[in-house]
């Protein structure tokens, strides 16, 4: 209850803030007409200043010149306003689930439009054809391509390609032709719209922007296939629609459409393919070139983001020069580049690239939506009931038709056919977005005398789909109970099912059954053999070791913090070891955490698509892992403290039990610790340094001690552990040395804290991990 009121308070604060900003903006706009020219209100002491300001030649202490900064000022104000709205949107937690974020952007745009309209202000010319295509569109495309989850995409590639290409074509032609049919009816007053114009409109309006729907999907956790279909569609759809758009514009520019012969239509088709495929090839070439360049940048890491952005942009521009689809080129470039660039660039550059990309695309989208809002509340409209209603109607109908028709065919080739419910959801998620509006806005007026009609119709369709469909799609998904990703109730099930997946894949490989894994594996082999050698920097293993190290240090820091906590709690007195733990159910949080780890980290045969949200970055897995480790450690800490205080176990040490946990046993005697140090100096193995020998040595020593303390559950573990590190001690290199000091130093001040068995084991296991992890790649 309190939380809700808090949220409400926050929201009201946000709204107040928003309102104040709006008032400022309004004041700026409102004040502006009165400024007009360079009028100079000066605040001199001189009283004669009021007399004749325009002819005053004195130096002015205080001047105001709005026109100079007008355009950047207003643009910045818009963007800030949209950002405030987004903040408010996310603070109020329920909203993001109800509606897509595009709703807020559109609302802001309408608000700004209303203000501008009310103050009779001439809005800055943000949107014209060259600005849109050269500056506003590329960041959006780049961001979509870069953050695309590649593995699920390529697994479903056939279906996605089939669906996007044919779907767009079907939709465009369908809507265009049907509208043309409607236009022929005299009563609606639309007879001056010829076939080409209708076809063009059809292609424009079929540009779908379902990314907005993806957020809702993620919330409802629909199955991965559905997610990928929609995602892939949004990616390819933009490119295809723009290609169609340009072809139709080219047709329109030919003098009279009666002159268009079949040869031209044929040429149009051929051009479609050339443009599309050419775009892909262009993009791939540029992707490789840029990946190659990043190989050499380890001394100038600050230019790495620059390389990435400039090369992608260059691919776009080059493609556009040749009238090839720049969008597809850029997408292909981003996808190709990502894999290699991520391995080459430094961590900071990587983060920079991600954030900067998100920022740019966010700005672009905001500007487009605001502009759309501005155009909404304006004078350039033409309302025609028939056209608009039929447009809406046909959009819905044709999308549904194309979905069902195309999926019916592609289901025959899929092992995972889409059910009726899935198809219904896909057809309902056809939200229109910024791209349709932009294309409508940029129609050349001379060729399209009724351009305003198109704009109005487009805006109505966008509003309808975004608001009504966007809001209702969530409940619809829940109502239809679309097959969800299998959120298992138990960890066991998750493990077993994964095991089975792998088993199945293995057997399929053995019996020579061709599956798409083979194709992917073949590509991987080619990749490993040739591409990676050329495109990725050398000394790769070191970097993964280094990153592993950093992680160990973070964990060490966490441990230090915790052991500080532990000392403060009174756990030093419980001498009971050999306690056992009652089998209690894991807390839901723990189960959730474990499941998350399993879901994200099990080597998946079919990986889940990570959450894609245009407006936020996907969370980093390693952060989550670190968090999760922290959660578990806290839990264990709490447990051990609880036990220390509440349960009077006077059990002697030798009883069995530890079941499956290395359970907290109570603090060890400090002597144990010395043992560790002693062992360190004795058995010095060759090759490696510090920590590794420390750990591996400690184990044989402590093992017998532990065994005395409690009956070790598993003699095998014993064997494994010893066997493990010894193999690998030789492998550890110089990178260990630095770490050694931190470890030793850190251990010194904390004699007591660490020695519960659980943490001891964990501690050991960390170190083992150091040794184990890099070895994995070699052993197998």
């Amino acid at each position: 209850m309190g939380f809700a009121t808090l949220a409400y308070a926050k929201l009201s604060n946000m709204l107040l803030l928003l309102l104040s900003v709006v008032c400022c903006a309004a004041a700026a706009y409102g004040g502006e007409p009165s400024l007009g020219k360079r009028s100079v209100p000066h605040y001199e002491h001189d009283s004669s200043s009021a007399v004749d300001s325009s002819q005053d030649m004195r130096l002015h202490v205080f001047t105001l010149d709005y026109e100079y900064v007008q355009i950047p000022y207003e643009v910045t104000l818009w963007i800030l306003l949209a950002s405030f709205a987004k903040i408010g949107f996310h603070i109020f937690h329920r909203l993001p689930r109800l509606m897509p974020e595009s709703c807020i952007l559109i609302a802001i745009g309408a608000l700004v439009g209303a203000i501008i309209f009310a103050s009779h202000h001439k809005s800055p010319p943000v949107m014209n054809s060259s600005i849109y295509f050269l500056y506003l569109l590329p960041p959006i495309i780049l961001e979509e391509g870069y953050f695309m989850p590649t593995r699920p995409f390529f697994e479903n590639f056939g279906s996605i390609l089939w669906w996007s290409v044919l779907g767009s074509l079907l939709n465009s032609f369908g809507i265009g032709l049907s509208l043309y049919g409607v236009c022929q009816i005299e009563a609606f007053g639309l007879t001056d719209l010829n076939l080409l114009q209708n076809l063009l409109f059809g292609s424009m309006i079929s540009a779908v922007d379902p990314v907005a729907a993806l957020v809702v999907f993620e919330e409802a956790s629909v199955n991965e296939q559905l997610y990928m279909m929609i995602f892939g569609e949004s990616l390819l759809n933009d490119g295809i629609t723009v290609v169609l758009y340009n072809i139709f514009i080219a047709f329109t520019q030919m003098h009279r459409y009666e002159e268009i012969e079949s040869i031209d239509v044929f040429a149009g088709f051929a051009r479609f393919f050339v443009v599309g495929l050419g775009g892909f090839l262009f993009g791939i070439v540029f992707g490789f070139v840029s990946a190659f360049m990043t190989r050499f940048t380890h001394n100038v890491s600050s230019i790495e983001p620059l390389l990435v952005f400039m090369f992608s942009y260059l691919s776009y521009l080059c493609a556009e020069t040749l009238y090839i689809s720049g969008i597809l080129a850029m997408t292909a470039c981003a996808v190709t580049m990502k894999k290699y660039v991520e391995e080459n660039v430094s961590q900071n550059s990587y983060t920079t690239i991600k954030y900067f990309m998100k920022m740019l695309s966010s700005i672009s989208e905001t500007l487009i939506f605001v502009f759309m809002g501005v155009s909404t509340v304006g004078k350039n409209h033409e309302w025609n009931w028939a056209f608009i209603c039929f447009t809406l109607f046909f959009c819905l109908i044709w999308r549904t038709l194309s979905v069902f028709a195309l999926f019916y065919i592609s289901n025959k080739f899929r092992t995972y056919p889409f059910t009726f419910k899935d198809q219904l959801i896909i057809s309902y998620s056809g939200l229109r977005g910024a791209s349709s509006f932009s294309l409508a806005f940029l129609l050349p007026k001379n060729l399209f005398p009724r351009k305003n009609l198109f704009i109005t119709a487009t805006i109505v369709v966008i509003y309808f789909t975004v608001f009504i469909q966007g809001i209702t799609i969530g409940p619809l998904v829940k109502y239809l109970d679309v097959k969800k990703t299998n959120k298992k109730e138990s960890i066991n099930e998750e493990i077993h099912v994964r095991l089975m997946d792998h088993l199945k894949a293995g057997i399929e490989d053995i019996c020579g059954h061709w599956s798409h894994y083979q194709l992917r594996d073949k590509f991987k082999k080619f990749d490993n053999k040739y591409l990676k050698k050329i495109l990725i920097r050398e000394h790769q293993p070191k970097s993964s070791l280094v990153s592993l190290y950093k992680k160990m240090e973070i964990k060490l820091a966490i441990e230090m913090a915790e052991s500080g906590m532990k000392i403060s709690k009174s756990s030093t007195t419980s001498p009971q070891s050999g306690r056992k733990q009652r089998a209690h159910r894991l807390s839901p949080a723990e189960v959730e955490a474990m499941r998350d780890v399993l879901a994200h980290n099990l080597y998946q045969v079919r990986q889940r698509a990570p959450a894609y949200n245009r407006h936020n970055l996907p969370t980093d897995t390693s952060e989550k892992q670190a968090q999760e480790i922290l959660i578990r450690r806290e839990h264990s800490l709490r447990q051990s403290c609880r036990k220390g205080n509440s349960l009077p176990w006077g059990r002697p040490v030798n009883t069995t039990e530890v079941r499956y946990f290395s359970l907290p046993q109570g603090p060890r005697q400090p002597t144990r610790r010395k043992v560790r140090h002693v062992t360190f100096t004795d058995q010095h193995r060759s090759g490696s340094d510090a920590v590794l020998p420390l750990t591996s040595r400690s184990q044989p020593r402590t093992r017998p001690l532990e065994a005395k303390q409690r009956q070790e559950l598993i003699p095998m573990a014993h064997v494994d552990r010893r066997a493990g590190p010894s193999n690998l001690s030789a492998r550890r290199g110089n990178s260990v040395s630095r770490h050694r000091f931190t470890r030793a130093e850190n251990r010194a001040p904390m004699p007591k804290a660490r020695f519960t068995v659980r943490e001891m084991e964990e501690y050991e296991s960390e170190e083992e991990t150091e040794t184990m992890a890099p070895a994995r790649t070699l052993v197998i």
Partner: protein
Amino acid sequence: MGSAHSVPAEMRELADRTGFTSEQIEHLHRRFKQLSQDQLTIRKENFDSIPDLEFNPIRGKIVHAFFDKRNLRQESDGLADEINFEDFLTIMSYFRPIEMNMDEEQLDRFRKEKLKFLFHMYDSDHDGKITLQEYRNVVEELLSGNPHLEKESARSIADGAMMEAASICVGQMGPDQVYEGITFEDFLKMWQGIDIETKMHVRFLNVDTIAHCY
């Protein structure tokens, strides 16, 4: 394209025993010959020639399962050194899809056999129980595809899973009880929720396999 050396009578016998059709047997036989390089038996090393298997994290266990005598329906225990075609077919028969004409009892037996195969994969020391360490092994192998995940996480996951298994199988345990390991009956209980018949099967096609887009 049957090779001459497999007599129809033998084939029929094999077909009866393992449940495959004769085309499937021929197809598998071709594969067997390819794997064994035209020898009569396969050894563990022959499995190295399958490059795609390298990416599989539980590769070791799978190969091991082929040579596990318990899976080969032999009375003895331990590992065989080499298997012949008949054994190969026997292992493959665990992965047959269910057929429509199976009755209740056959289905149940089928399910049990598949589960037993899985159980043997977990239980590497052949003692009839999955102990904590074996379970840990499995989870670690599964997670080995991600080199950045610490073993400790894998361990905790295995521990948690084991505890869950205990609570499913034995319910609330008293302070004195020890849970030794998962027996086959417990294993069956855990699998009640998952329908293994639909998951654990491979489509054995009759002719040269076709590429599927998933």
